């Protein structure tokens, strides 16, 4: 069964009017497909809601196009184009390796030999490989020697091999760094070959793969370099690969471990001296240029390798001492690149069609809708965003595109045995999941682990992202999640007739305060979990200056993200990075010494552990999560406080708030935030409603909030497992309203928007969108408040 015959992506997430957005479409089967631009209103197909709603937009790109199959060539590697200096008669290769899947399952999607350092194609050339049996192999043309000793996974080994054209002798060394008591010795192996090295013209030198052939097919243009197909992608780390132009002795190989440092003088230390230095063809040092997509060559020819598909860098090398944890402090101990056979930074497809967004196009959620006559369908979402200074509304919806990228093409239901424990029911997968389970080349999310089990910390938007789609229910919620869930909010804004602009995380990150200061109110999506530092700075500055903020979700401002600067040349916000460090809800955990981002050098992990507490942004922060069902809120006494009572006009005190909804059946659910002044909630925060005491056993406290595992951490017992709707004022007439539940927006469309959650949000938005500062609170509300002694009702009666 073919699950999705049409998939696609665009070159931009956010596009300004008068700019052009390009679309790339894979149409695998149908002869042609129809493309039309649609405005997205509601993406949830649930029959208990308003159903799927889109609006056709007149666009000059709306047409029928010829279908073309496009390929994604995933798997990271480094390469240097064919150079005569690599066309050697004799050769020595050496490197350190930390393989993660030296042996794979026969059904594994890339089962077969893995290239380490190769200039080899179609039985010609030389190379160090890991063979199908998981042993190191040295190839001279079609001749092979192997130690026959399987490599240990997740362990450093030194490997080297030489071939002497004069004698025909080939030697292969395989030396584990740690030798356990009962390990057999692995002596070097040697063999006489009666062959002379020959080469397929155009064969690049490849690190972590080998040249699998050349192709003129149009789809092969998506490979790098175009038309050269790289195969045998390696899973694991490589450190200090080197190529020499003759067969070195074992002692010389040992000396070469010192690396190449040219420019020997009487005052300068140098690498190999004299005759040995003349043997160097290339000596790559991956500790230099960690934030780039080049592998620096310290050899005489400066054969810097182009690194393709963004493998993980800033990885501890074979020589990491465990004293320095930031790669910037000791880059020489971070000379390893961790390559993966499923890394992908850019699908590099050919443009299928493009649209110049006309001037005056409203700033909203859009998509290119792609359909075939046979009923195949895909949508490519994008957002039209006004230029700074050309805002068209008082309201801005901040689309959490970094979070979308973090969840992009997530594989948990398919890969993670524990997914069912997490959601407390059997996961339900959709066609997108089924397609991705087979098409691993589309890459994974930052929630996934790579095919080798290591954490996936980089995500690109230049590939079809099938989770950012309407009509897509996510296994976590058995309902829309992220993009389609945020359309619950969009439907409500449209239904209620509000005029709003949309801006994305990317726009706020790159434009700072200028991007937000002209709006009276900023509304978030349902789950703005992943954020960049500049974005948080912009929000902080905005709110301090009187901006108003409506936090429509939960588990926001949780993880540190950064856009990889090496991709800025092809657009804003192309690749985002996140490391899952010390604590927090982590589907994988970064290894020791690997907490710092390769792109920006900043410490990854949770904002909380960088002293930027979640609760300082919107007023509430993450407390717990569970995914089975949601529940409702009750108003608290504080909701009658004159500072906030206006928000509940038209809502009775005893009403159950949000005992309905399209996510879990209630407004309080999936992930929940609470007020905690010790974690940054301002001490004048008012908790106006809470879901305390109503959650299921499937809801559990977040792990960063406790130091011991113990009984009683679930929603039927722990007092912190709840969602607090909270309000606080900010200086200069600003304020923040936090609704504190991911399921919250799912209640807005209920009964076509006629419900008490809709009423509450409408009251808040109507007040927050007004021009000028908000009305000042009464003078008696102004008092000294501590943080630890926070207890709001008592504050009022404090002596």
């Amino acid at each position: 069964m073919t699950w999705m015959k049409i998939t696609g992506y665009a070159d931009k997430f956010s596009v300004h009017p008068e700019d052009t957005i390009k679309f790339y479409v894979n149409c695998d089967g149908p002869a042609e497909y129809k493309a039309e631009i649609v405005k997205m209103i509601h993406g949830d197909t649930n029959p208990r809601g308003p159903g799927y709603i889109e609006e056709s937009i007149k666009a000059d790109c709306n047409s029928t196009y010829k279908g073309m199959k496009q390929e994604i060539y995933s798997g990271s590697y480094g390469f240097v184009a064919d150079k005569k200096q690599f066309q050697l008669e004799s050769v020595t290769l050496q490197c350190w390796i930390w393989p993660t899947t030296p042996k794979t399952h026969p059904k594994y999607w890339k089962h077969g030999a893995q290239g380490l350092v190769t200039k080899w194609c179609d039985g010609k050339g030389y190379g160090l490989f890991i063979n199908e049996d998981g042993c190191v192999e040295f190839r001279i043309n079609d001749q092979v020697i192997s130690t026959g000793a399987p490599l240990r996974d997740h362990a450093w080994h030194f490997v080297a091999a030489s071939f002497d054209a004069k004698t025909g002798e080939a030697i292969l060394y395989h030396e584990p760094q740690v030798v356990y008591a009962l390990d057999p010795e692995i002596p070097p192996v040697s063999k006489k070959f009666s062959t002379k090295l020959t080469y397929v013209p155009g064969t690049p030198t490849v690190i972590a793969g080998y040249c699998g052939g050349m192709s003129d097919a149009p789809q092969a243009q998506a490979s790098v370099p175009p038309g050269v197909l790289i195969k045998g992608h390696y899973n694991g780390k490589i450190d200090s690969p080197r190529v020499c132009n003759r067969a070195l002795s074992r002692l010389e190989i040992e000396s070469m471990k010192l690396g190449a440092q040219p420019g020997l003088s009487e005052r300068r230390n140098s690498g190999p001296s004299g005759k040995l230095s003349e043997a160097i063809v290339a000596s790559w040092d991956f500790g230099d240029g960690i934030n780039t997509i080049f592998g620096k060559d310290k050899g005489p020819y400066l054969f810097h390798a182009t690194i393709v598909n963004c493998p993980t860098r800033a990885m501890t090398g074979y020589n990491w001492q465990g004293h320095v944890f930031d790669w910037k402090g000791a880059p020489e101990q971070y000379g390893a690149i961790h390559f993966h056979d499923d890394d992908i930074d850019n699908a590099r497809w050919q443009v299928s069609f493009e649209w110049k967004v006309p001037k005056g196009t409203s700033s909203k959620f859009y998509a290119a809708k792609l359909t075939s006559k046979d009923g195949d369908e895909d949508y490519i979402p994008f957002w039209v965003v006004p230029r700074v200074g050309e805002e068209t509304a008082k309201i801005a919806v901040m689309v959490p595109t970094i979070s979308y990228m973090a969840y992009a093409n997530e594989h948990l239901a398919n890969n993670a045995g524990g997914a069912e424990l997490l959601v407390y029911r059997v996961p339900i997968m959709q066609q997108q999941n089924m397609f991705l389970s087979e098409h691993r080349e589309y890459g994974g999310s930052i929630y996934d682990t790579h095919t080798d089990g290591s954490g996936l910390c980089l995500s690109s938007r230049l590939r079809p992202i099938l989770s950012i789609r309407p009509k897509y229910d996510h296994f976590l919620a058995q309902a829309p999640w992220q993009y389609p869930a945020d359309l619950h909010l969009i439907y409500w804004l449209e239904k209620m007739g509000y005029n709003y602009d949309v801006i994305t995380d990317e726009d706020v990150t790159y434009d700072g305060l200028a991007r937000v200061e002209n709006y009276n109110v900023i509304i978030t999506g349902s789950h703005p979990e992943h954020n960049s530092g500049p974005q948080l700075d912009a929000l902080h500055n905005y709110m301090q200056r009187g901006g108003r903020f409506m936090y429509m979700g939960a588990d926001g401002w949780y993880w540190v993200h950064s856009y990889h600067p090496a991709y800025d040349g092809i657009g804003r916000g192309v690749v985002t990075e996140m490391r899952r460090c010390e604590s927090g809800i982590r589907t994988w955990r970064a290894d020791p010494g690997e907490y710092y981002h390769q792109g920006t050098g900043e410490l990854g992990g949770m904002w909380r552990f960088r002293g930027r507490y979640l609760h300082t942004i919107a007023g509430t922060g993450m407390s717990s999560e569970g995914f089975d069902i949601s529940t409702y809120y009750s108003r608290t006494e504080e909701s009658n406080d004159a500072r906030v009572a206006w928000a509940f006009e038209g809502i009775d005190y005893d009403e159950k708030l949000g005992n309905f909804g399209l996510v879990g059946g209630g407004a309080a659910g999936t992930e929940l935030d609470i007020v905690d002044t010790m974690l940054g909630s301002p001490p004048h925060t008012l908790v106006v409603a809470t879901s305390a005491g109503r959650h299921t056993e499937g809801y559990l406290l977040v792990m960063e909030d406790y130091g011991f595992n113990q009984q009683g951490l679930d929603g039927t017992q722990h007092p912190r497992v709840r969602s607090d709707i909270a309000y606080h004022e900010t200086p200069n007439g600003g304020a923040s309203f936090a609704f504190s539940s991911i399921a919250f927006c799912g209640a807005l469309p209920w009964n076509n928007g006629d419900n008490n959650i809709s009423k509450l949000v409408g009251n808040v938005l109507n007040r927050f969108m007004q021009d000028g500062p908000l009305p000042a609170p009464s003078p008696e509300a102004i008092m000294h408040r501590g943080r630890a002694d926070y207890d709001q009702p008592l504050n009022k009666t404090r002596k």
Partner: protein
Amino acid sequence: MIPIPRPSTPDAERMIREHKECIDSMKGVAGNSVLKCETPGDTTTVTGGIHEDLQLNRVLLRMRAKPAKGKLVVICTKVEKEWRIARLSGVRGVPPEFVTDKVYDNEQDPQHDIFLMRLEEMPETDGFPEHFREGWKRRDDQWTVT
């Protein structure tokens, strides 16, 4: 440890009945739990199920903790219309395969059928200490996910 009861025993029959009632009551909820909605399709008040039947709770946890390889899942084959039961391959790049021909017209019923299938196919002593081997309860995978 609490064993997984054989399907025809009174314990199993009680659990099957409770599970079915819970699942039926969740029809219409965009989500699901083995808890009973006081009003079907409305999560305002939920009782019973995993919160009150300790044995059912423990058996479900055991079932949910099965390794990814061979694990039963639900596949939505037509949005809001059709669902089927499949099994995960446990090998990355190899998609799940359908295991029955039954096509469901709602997303809750396959949850109950999977419960029945697991009662049939899981050993009574699944996960008991006697099953110890290297990797016991490591869920047979080398991945750290959840």
